[in-house]
């Protein structure tokens, strides 16, 4: 397990990897980031990804940007953080602005609308799959599998069915999980 780990070799490697990653992310980079960093590049294990994601999620700012910034700064300090931000943003921003110019001309075309629909359906599947794949990381969680499943299901129902604001989820099942983990780790 340990020897399968890898890391970015240089600032340029970090920048290029994240640029390539961001350019694959239609409808958000969430699914791609997991696939590239854990499955393909192996900069993070599944378990580490879930831990870092928890931090990236709870701090203000877009979670994907936060995560990449954290990874960059871990390996190369503030220069790594800047390279990661630049990788996630520079080329994709040019792309989205070019699309805005194109949209002003062809946006009403039925083929364009259809293609967007089809890509949206795929993008949803990518994110669900990322979640299913990471669920394997919970086997080694100190909370134990039954409690993990319960908290995961409550979260899913809260966000996807009841459409509760994120704050409720973090203060509800989120806080519950943290308290339970604190106890099981031996902190009283």
């Amino acid at each position, binding site marked *: 397990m340990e020897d399968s780990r890898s890391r970015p070799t240089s600032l340029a490697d970090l920048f290029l990897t994240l640029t390539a990653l961001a350019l*694959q992310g239609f409808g958000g980079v969430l699914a791609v980031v997991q696939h590239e960093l854990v499955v393909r590049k192996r900069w993070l294990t599944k378990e580490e990804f879930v831990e870092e994601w928890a931090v990236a999620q709870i701090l203000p700012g*877009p979670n994907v940007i936060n995560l990449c910034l954290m990874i960059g700064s871990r390996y190369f300090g503030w220069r790594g953080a800047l390279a990661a931000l630049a990788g996630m943003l520079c080329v994709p921003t040019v792309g989205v602005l070019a699309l805005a110019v194109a949209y002003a001309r062809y946006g009403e075309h039925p083929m364009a609308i259809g293609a967007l629909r*089809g890509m949206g359906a795929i993008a949803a*599947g990518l994110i*669900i799959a990322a*979640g299913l794949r990471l669920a394997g990381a919970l086997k080694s969680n100190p909370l134990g599998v039954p409690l993990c499943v319960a908290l995961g299901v409550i979260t899913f129902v809260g966000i*996807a069915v009841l459409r509760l604001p994120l704050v409720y989820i973090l203060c509800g099942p989120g806080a519950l*999980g943290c308290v339970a*983990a604190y106890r099981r*780790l031996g902190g009283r």
Partner: protein
Amino acid sequence: MSTPALDLAWSDWLALFGHFLSLSLMAVGAAFSTLPEMHRYLVDRQHWLTDPQFTASITLAQAAPGPNVLFVALMGWNVGMNAGGYGAALIGAVVCLVGMLLPSSLLVYFASHWGQRNRDRHAVRAFKQGMGPVVIGLLIGTGWIMASANGDPASDWPLWLLTAAATIIVWRTRLHLLWLLGIGAVLGGLGWV
């Protein structure tokens, strides 16, 4: 479509920058949570964007590759276009994106350093481990919400089938994600789903 012709002074650009600076630290989870506030300011109060421009900024950013937060750059772009043209639009995009990301990125940078130094503390480990199942529930839930845009399962079942197939293929194989997105675009463009 009528778009406003704006005459923006330096103070207006500064106000735009300040608005996004102030929203940055409120955007917990995703930048989308601050959308109502952006709408109130840019459309209702300042009239810098029209309603269709506001909505198109979000949809286009979703359709383009890259982080969702780029919708902020598009809003700035459209404000700039209303104010004169491509030069102003470019300034608008940069002003909004930098404003949105600067405060939160600084906070994340220092917070992650603190967390890294204190990673063996019980509280830090408990937080990261305890949030695990919630993080995964949120991911699957987000995918589900996006899939709901597929429409009614009874009439739009091909789209739902496409989502299900993509889920299983990505979960179980290492196929490059771009192939799947390409297939989705072709099927949708030809009107088969």
